[in-house]
């Protein structure tokens, strides 16, 4: 499910399979491209494999979980089986990552400045760490940078801590930023500000951003393109505007229907019955079949082909919602 691009992708993932102990597949043949300056929103519910996809790209999969198939190209170089330290200085660019809870990624007993400078020393030996640290804090719009450099993590708000994590991520001058639910732990008003910052950095630094979230609202307002993941596989990809205007996969449409719309007169919310399968319960057919309102016999037999539309959407479904998608 790769979309058409005018520029070469900076990150290209094709047919990625990640499995536990080489047997239980938790990512099942995922493909996507991200261009420089583009935000791809990878959306799905807990356990769908979105974080494992990103950890595979970072080379940070936990022990006993590994890539069993597929390729991850960064700036054209295959990095699929390289450990993080083997990736440095290959001239292909770098991937940095930020996580949901900045407090667990920051060292509580070190000052903010020391933690940023540490990252600078590792990745950028030719600059003066203190000067560059100040510059990075300015880039993430932390006010009063000189004062904040001597603060400890617990003295900052959640929003400021996430800005510090972004500054540390930028220290290696990444060409790709992976953001795994970076605003989920933040209050909505602060979330909005951090999302705006990520958009600005993506644009000004021409970074590719893989933005992982469970929140369709965040994806709609931030991402350029969207990939919807369910039970380890992508079910739909497309540009953000057509995808939200007319979702093709019943799961995408179902997720959108579950969002509370305070303006609607219906007192009840639409729901998707049942719950997502565990990775060891996924068979050969469509993993959404047991919950799908459009299910037919064919859905339970064999792999489901991907269909493409003229709007640039791709959907893995025998019975997509507009009925016009061609194979």
């Amino acid at each position, binding site marked *: 499910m790769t979309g058409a691009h005018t520029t070469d992708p900076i990150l290209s993932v094709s047919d990625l399979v990640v499995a536990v102990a080489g047997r239980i597949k938790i990512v099942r043949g995922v493909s996507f491209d991200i261009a420089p300056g583009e935000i791809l929103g990878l959306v799905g*519910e807990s356990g769908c494999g979105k974080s494992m996809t990103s950890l595979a790209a970072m080379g940070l999969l936990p022990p006993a979980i590994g890539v069993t198939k597929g390729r991850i190209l960064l700036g054209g170089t295959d990095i699929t089986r390289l450990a993080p330290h083997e990736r440095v200085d290959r001239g292909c660019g770098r991937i940095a990552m930020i996580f949901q809870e900045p407090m667990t990624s920051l060292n509580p007993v070190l000052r903010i400045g020391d933690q940023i400078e540490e990252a600078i020393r590792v990745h950028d030996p030719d600059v003066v760490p203190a000067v560059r640290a100040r510059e990075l804090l300015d880039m993430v719009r932390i006010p009063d940078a000189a004062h904040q450099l001597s603060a400890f993590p617990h003295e900052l708000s959640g929003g400021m801590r996430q800005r510090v994590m972004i500054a540390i991520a930028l220290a290696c001058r990444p060409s790709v930023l992976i953001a795994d639910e970076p605003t989920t732990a933040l209050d*909505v008003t602060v979330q909005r*500000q951090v999302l705006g910052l990520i958009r600005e950095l993506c644009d000004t630094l021409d970074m590719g951003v893989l933005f992982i979230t469970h929140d369709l609202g965040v994806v709609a*307002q931030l991402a350029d393109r969207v990939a919807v993941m369910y039970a380890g596989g992508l079910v739909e990809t497309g540009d953000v505007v057509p995808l939200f205007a007319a979702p093709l996969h019943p799961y995408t449409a179902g997720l959108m229907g579950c969002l509370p719309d*305070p303006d609607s007169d219906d007192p009840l*919310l639409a729901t998707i019955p049942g719950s997502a399968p565990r990775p060891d319960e996924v068979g050969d057919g469509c993993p959404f079949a047991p919950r799908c309102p459009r299910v037919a016999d064919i859905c339970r037999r064999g792999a489901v082909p991907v269909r493409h539309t003229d709007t640039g959407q791709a959907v893995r479904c025998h019975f997509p919602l507009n009925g016009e998608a061609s194979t």
Partner: protein
Amino acid sequence: MTDDTVLDIRNLSKAYHVRRGGKNHEVRAVDDISLAVRAGETLGIVGESGCGKSSLARAVMGLTRADGGKVIHDGVDLLTLDRRSLARARLRIRMVFQDPYASLDPRRSVGDSVAEAGDIHGIFESSAERKRLVGEALDRVGLGAGFADRFPHELSGGQRQRVGIARAILPEPELVIADEPVSALDVSIQAQVLNLLAELKNRLGLTLLFISHDLSVVAKISDRVAVLYMGRVVEIAPARPLFRDPRHPYTELLIQAIPRPDPSTRITGAIEPDEPPSRFARLAGCPFRDRCPRRTEICATDAPELREIEPGRFVSCHHA
């Protein structure tokens, strides 16, 4: 207060004392809050982290000792009750918690967890009745009596939260206080649980106090909504008018910040950080004034009172 008030919260206050940087700080988590919960309504309480919404619930339930104020239920101030009477009152006012993983004892079967309050207060006349009532409660939440013999680890997050709800409704309470009941759940499961709460409320004639950080969820499920900021109520209104036409600038900010599944309202670029002030700082005047586009001199000196600007709509703002 009108005759149909189920729970009358009057001037409730709760402060915590925190030591930071060698100094003692007082954090007024709940700062003189008054709210009347009416029979049969869903009253939503919304606000961001640290606004005092959970402290409010805990103080009402007597899970933490309030510093001042009254919580009147059935003509009695719950805050003056001894342990025994408070425990009995808690059969009429039940609570559903956020984390269905932490709020169920992993070593007890679902049936024992659901029956717990009934066991303590001896409301079952026989083990057959106990079994029947537990089965009935599990049926009502859509799980079925068969779940009584299962254990929490065998259940999904959504199923656990249904057990939490069954446990709350078993003693046939008048009022259920639900503190972030769907925040830990996935969107598709969240919708199922919200529908269940709405349905139970109608079927059992419950009154619901629904606490959440998510204004779109609160506005959907509630009849009226109270917006909290830094321990105070800044606005109370019927849910839809509040959502469509907020009168307090903080409510407006909150509504604008909700991520909507609509790509026509794009996030385009960075704005300067704008965060609530430290809860350690004691501010005179309006708590929202530093972030407020409408602020004037009076906001720095006088704390605005919650006043009725239209029938049923209360706002604490000098400029509403």
